[in-house]
């Protein structure tokens, strides 16, 4: 067995209805001091997997171990209270009848528990709100209390279920950073479940992509963004244009140029996945001709919807200061670093 202080998930299966498992043979490993994000659409089984790690669901097949100790197996189940797993629930699950301080102190025992809890609250700058009940706290304050409560017993594993989804967009950024710092400081093996790619990329060292009960790709944000293993994986992290092609001479053809297709056999059907940044407007005369159909302003720049001569449509992001408008003709070239070829 490898991995001192590592949480290991081996071929875990969890199902409520026969023949339709919520989690279908998932393996994943993450160690203390690291933050892993489990990114997937709703209904992909990621929350179920999180609950299984916490011991709130039983597994039907496979194993969950921490530091070599068996936590979950079909015939063995360690109770949640014996796992040293801290959980931040999506709705925070603060105890409504206890003050912020008593919520944080719940996981402690012994005479010093109140002062320890107070120290933790002060660390998240909520010392002044210690006597407040959850319904008297703002959303951001509730989130911080929930995080402090989960971290206070010094768990080996921290699990966060969509921890920022209930918050105002403006609040999210600041809280995300503060939470990430607190989690890194705590040094637990941390798993964050989210459906927000931006959140996963901002917080995690490693991202595991989950869809339909399976993990489809694992890696760091950059490699996942630039080298997705499948269209589904690519779409989980952001927008992507897809062009169908056939491998010829080890290359896949797109309307604006060739992309290398390593590992695919000659003549194979494939899909070329291109991030919007990969489609660039060029001043040169060699690019593919396209007409701008629509220009829309976003926070990241101007997004152009273009029509190629073949009739295919494609989107490109340009600086907001670039003056291309609807009706203009432009030439496009491909930055192949943003393109990936996958088998279909």
């Amino acid at each position: 067995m490898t991995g001192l202080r590592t949480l290991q998930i081996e071929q875990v299966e969890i199902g409520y209805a026969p023949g339709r498992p919520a989690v279908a043979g998932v393996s994943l490993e993450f160690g203390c001091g690291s933050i892993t994000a489990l990114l997937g659409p709703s209904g992909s089984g990621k929350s179920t997997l999180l609950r299984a790690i916490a011991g709130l669901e039983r597994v039907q097949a496979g194993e969950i171990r921490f530091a070599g100790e068996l936590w979950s197996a079909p015939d063995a189940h360690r109770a949640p209270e014996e796992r040293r797993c801290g959980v931040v629930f999506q709705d925070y699950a603060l105890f409504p009848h206890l003050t912020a301080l008593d919520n944080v102190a719940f996981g402690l025992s012994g005479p010093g528990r109140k002062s320890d809890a107070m120290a933790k609250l002060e660390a998240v700058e909520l010392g002044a709100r210690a006597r407040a009940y959850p319904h008297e706290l703002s959303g951001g304050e509730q989130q911080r209390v929930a995080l402090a409560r989960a971290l206070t017993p010094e768990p080996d594993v921290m699990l966060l279920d969509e921890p920022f989804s209930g918050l105002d967009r403006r609040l999210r950024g600041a809280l995300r950073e503060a939470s990430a710092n607190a989690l890194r400081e705590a040094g637990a093996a941390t798993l964050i479940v989210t459906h927000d790619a931006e959140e996963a990329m901002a917080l995690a060292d490693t991202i595991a992509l989950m869809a339909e009960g399976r993990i489809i790709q694992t890696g760091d944000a950059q490699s996942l963004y630039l080298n997705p293993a499948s269209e589904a994986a690519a779409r989980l992290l952001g927008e992507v244009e897809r062009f169908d092609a056939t491998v010829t001479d080890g290359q896949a053809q797109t309307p604006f140029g060739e992309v290398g297709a390593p590992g695919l056999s000659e003549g194979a059907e494939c899909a070329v996945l291109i991030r919007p940044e990969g489609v660039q407007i060029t001043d040169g005369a060699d690019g593919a001709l396209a007409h701008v159909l629509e220009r829309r302003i976003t926070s990241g720049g101007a997004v152009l919807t273009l029509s190629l001569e073949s009739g295919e449509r494609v989107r490109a992001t340009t600086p907001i200061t670039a003056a291309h408008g609807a009706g203009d003709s432009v030439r496009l070239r491909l930055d192949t670093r943003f393109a990936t070829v996958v088998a279909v």
Partner: protein
Amino acid sequence: MTLRPNANALAALAALAIAAPLLAVVALAVFGAWTDYLAHLAETRLTDYLANTAIVALCACATAGIVGAVSAWLVARYAFPGRAQLEWLLALPLAMPAYAAAYAWFDLTQAAGPLGFLPTVRGPVGAGFIFGLTLYPYVYLLMRETFAGQSSDAYDAARTLGAGPARAFTRIALPMARPALAAGLGLVLMETMADFGAVVHLGAPTLSVALVRAWAGEGSSPDAARLAVLLVTITFLILFIERAQRRRARQHAASGRVKPPRRVRLGGGAALAALAICAIPILAGLVIPMARLGWLALDAPVARGLGEAAINALSLAVITALIAAAFGIVAAYALRSRRPLGVAAARLAGLGYAVPGAVAALGVLIVFGQLQSGLDALWTSAFGQSFPFLLTAGAATLVFAYLSRFAAAAIGPSESALSRVTPSLEGAARSLGAGPRRVITQVHWPILSSGALLAGLLVFVEVLKELPATMILRPFNFDTLAVIAHNYASDERLGEAALPALLIAIFCLPAMVFVARRITRQERRAERQLATELG
């Protein structure tokens, strides 16, 4: 636009009629002639009455609270064989009158009885235990609904913070359900305070008994009224505490979205234990008492006038239930109107449940007595003779007293049914071309009628079980099953008391089965809907 038939005047009138007995009791207590009976009582037995009342109430709450909360928790949060049946079976002991259960359990556990090895069920502790066994369904029903609707996240969070199942239940799930517990225990206490038969039979006379004795034994209505005021003060205090809990609960409602919990599947020994824990209250509160009463009835002659008493009891129950259901509908509309008069009227009537039967009966006697003497005076001055009808001679006074006590029970179901008729529902019907009349008959009534039916059945059961008001107000030579059972039991003729007591339970049972299944089915439908949405 919301359709709000103007039922306020009607509701106000009905509420006044319902509240009148209580006001009359208070007036008499204040202005009535003082005798030395009360002083004598205060020196002698009043402390006993008060102590009994306190002990009975405490034991009833402890039993009903524990049994109700634990069974509700198991049924709401765990899956085990028989759970779906137990879910509604657990409500059925409400069909068993407390005095009938008292006859049976006392007989079973007395020294010569078949369960003589157990401590004899008697005295204030025994009476409290009996109330707990027969009234716990109030706690069970309210808490089951709360537990089933409560997100399991808080409980789960407690588990991940190191609390075992027992600690997570007592520290988190139970406190979060405290308003439901308070409401359930409030109902248990109201019934306990109102009871007459069980506490007399088990030798634990409470304030209700003191009141009846002051009225019947001493013939002193003002003194009885003063005891009644004392009793009502206590019940209203309980009501006040319960309402305060509920207000607090709204503030403490859990944060975030509520996700109904998935039931945890129990296997093997745990499933068997859960099954046993849930089956025991049904056996102890319903099956064993019924079996014992049946056994006793087999060996005893049939009580005289039983058939007539059964017909009397059923007619009273049906008539009262119909009127109460109608009143419930009127009150629901009055509450919906949000006009101060209507709302105040409905709330006033809603207090009736906190008025014990003996108090209501006393109040009705006073009101009708005053009405009679007024009419007599009027008639004498006009025709030279007294009013030809004796108002208090008929069963109408009885129905009136029942209504003043139980109409409150009829408001809730209709109110919650009518609340499902949302403004947008009406708007949809109106925009589809339905006029107000069609909206009432085709939208309101189908939804409202289920609530009214539920209300009617609940009142039917309550009236059949009612004893003290019936005893005080029944016309001469007019017996009901409850009265016959009580009279025979007081004569130590339990054999003859058994059959009428058993008949009450038998008549109540189908109504309770319907009510219980209806209440639990509504939720299952919601659950299925959720399952399809999730799937």
